[in-house]
């Protein structure tokens, strides 16, 4: 056999084997870019007064390589997660409102047909004392400078620290002629444009009108993708123009608010990954939100927020997923994370929609995949709290961990015990 012939045979390797290798290479390249950005920024920032110019092609992805599970690996090696429930009867409920959620387009990238068998779980980075380890001041400074460069802005004065506590800097804010940029310790970047420099989309498109139709919003989102997609990276940009309804009890003429219902549509852009998992992770951890609120200029962009959540996390492992049916059983037992006025759904509660999302909050140390059940609790809210709004149904948000229950335990205050 000639050596070229074996090379030729390797060229005909099955597609699924090549796809797997392709995925590993691509993830590695993205991680390399992120690591290089952080390292370069810290080195150059230490020299003071140097402006870091980083190519806009860098991605903000996890700075730890993905751990791929070897088949047959002993599952006992996986970390057992400790999760908190937050079920309260207090204010600030996690509830969304729609006339009928079943008639809404679900823009979440997950679909049940994806047949995902496992997804990564991320843990908040901690230092040697177990304290959360977010971005350092130098890293935030370099991120600020990087995004200023991407927008073509020049920072006009030394970024001022804001919200500093116990020696930790939680955010940095810099001013440019065109905008105010803030970087937060979890890697989030927020840009508030100064009015005279706020970018505008064509007048035929609108950003902040309450009664925008789905088609009009799609046209706006498409334009925004072309305009700002580069801020996320070089892959295809996709969008989410969902958002629920709100109610103006005390309308404001200044803000153009009329009494009654309004649509809270959002414009979220994210990158399509090389596979379904990467797309879901991009949507969860590295997306951009664009908004406008000037009622006199409905085509004006007033702000942009870019999430780089992986800055604050490290990957622990990939965990096997349970099915939607198994998750629903967990939900009925009360094993979920929720804040819906203390109301838990039962077998008679109608399911509005289910998505697969990543859930994380200040209390929990993990970002983990969850089935988000949106359950119609309109009647229960009316009966138990006296909360009711004409024209909309109210859907409580219930997060059921999508990973196999043998890999996590709940902390105390587990009200599911009441259900048993």
């Amino acid at each position, binding site marked *: *056999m*000639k*050596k*070229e*012939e*074996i*090379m*030729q*045979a*390797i*060229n*005909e*390797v*099955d*597609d699924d*084997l*090549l*796809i*797997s*290798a*392709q995925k*590993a*290479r691509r*993830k*590695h390249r993205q991680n*390399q870019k992120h690591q290089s950005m952080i390292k370069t920024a810290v080195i150059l920032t230490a020299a003071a007064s140097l402006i870091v110019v980083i190519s806009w092609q860098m991605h903000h992805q996890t700075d730890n*390589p*993905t*751990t*791929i599970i*070897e*088949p*047959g690996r002993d599952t006992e090696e996986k970390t057992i997660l400790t999760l908190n429930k937050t079920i309260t009867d207090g204010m600030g409920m996690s509830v969304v409102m729609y006339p009928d959620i079943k008639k809404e387009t679900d823009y979440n990238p997950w679909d049940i047909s994806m047949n995902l068998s496992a997804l990564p779980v991320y843990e908040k980075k901690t230092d040697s004392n177990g304290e959360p380890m977010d971005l350092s001041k130098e890293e935030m400074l370099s991120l600020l400078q990087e995004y200023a460069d991407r927008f073509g802005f020049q920072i006009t004065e030394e970024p001022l620290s804001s919200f500093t506590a116990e020696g930790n800097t939680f955010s940095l804010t810099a001013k440019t002629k065109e905008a105010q940029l803030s970087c937060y310790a979890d890697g989030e970047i927020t840009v508030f444009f100064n009015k005279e420099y706020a970018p505008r989309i064509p007048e035929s498109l609108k950003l902040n009108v309450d009664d925008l139709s789905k088609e009009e919003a799609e046209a706006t989102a498409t334009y925004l993708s072309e305009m700002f997609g580069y801020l996320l990276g*070089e892959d*295809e940009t996709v969008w989410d123009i969902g958002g629920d309804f709100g109610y103006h009890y005390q309308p404001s003429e200044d803000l153009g608010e009329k009494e009654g219902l309004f649509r809270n549509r959002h414009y979220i852009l994210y990158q399509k990954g090389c596979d379904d998992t990467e797309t879901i992770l991009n949507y969860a951890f590295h997306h951009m939100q664009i908004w406008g609120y000037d009622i006199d200029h409905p085509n004006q962009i007033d702000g942009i927020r870019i999430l780089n959540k992986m800055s604050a996390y490290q990957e622990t492992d990939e965990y096997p997923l349970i099915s939607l049916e198994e998750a629903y059983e967990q939900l009925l037992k009360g094993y979920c994370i929720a804040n819906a006025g203390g109301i838990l759904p039962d077998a008679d509660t109608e399911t509005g929609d289910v998505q697969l999302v990543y859930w994380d909050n200040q209390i929990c140390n993990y970002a983990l995949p969850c089935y988000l059940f949106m359950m119609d609790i309109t009647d229960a809210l009316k009966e138990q709290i006296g909360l009711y709004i004409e024209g909309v149904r109210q859907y409580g948000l219930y997060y059921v961990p999508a990973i196999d229950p043998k890999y996590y335990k709940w902390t105390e205050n587990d009200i599911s015990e009441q259900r048993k």
Partner: protein
Amino acid sequence: MEDKDIIELYWQRDETAIRETDIKYGSYLHAVAFNILNDREDAKETTNDTYLKTWNSIPPQKPSAFLVWLSRITRSLAIDRLRFLTRKKRGTSQYDISLEELEECIGGETAVKEYELSILKDMINSFLRCYSEKQRNLFLCRYFYFDSLKEASAACGFSEASAKTQLFRMRTALKEYLAKEGFLS
């Protein structure tokens, strides 16, 4: 643009299909070619040849994994191009290094018949499926994509030393497998 939409453009003989392919995968394919040819101009020409071959192949073909399909064409064209280049350019690319490594797996330089190549392809697939995903990825990063040992090991989660050992063992096992099936003289 979704792969299926790009492929549809080829079917409709819309020349924007080539532009869309270039936008989405141009840099990736260029990197595949460069790993073999170690020359930017040659890699660029190979990438352009890939588009031409794709245009001439779709239809009737309708690849289900578009990037994999394109990668195969680019790799194959790059290897063919390399064979015609001067001796001087050889020995510096990852392709040549990988080729030298794989020489361990083969016997003499007797040409394999065409039908035997098809069997050889199936055997390589079967061989690879005996290994974990991580090990398979390492093998393919090195011998399909011609990544350097450093890059291949990092992409697949091995240390360089461990990757080197893994690849050595896989080549040895492949040689034994091919010998057992009568492919080696």
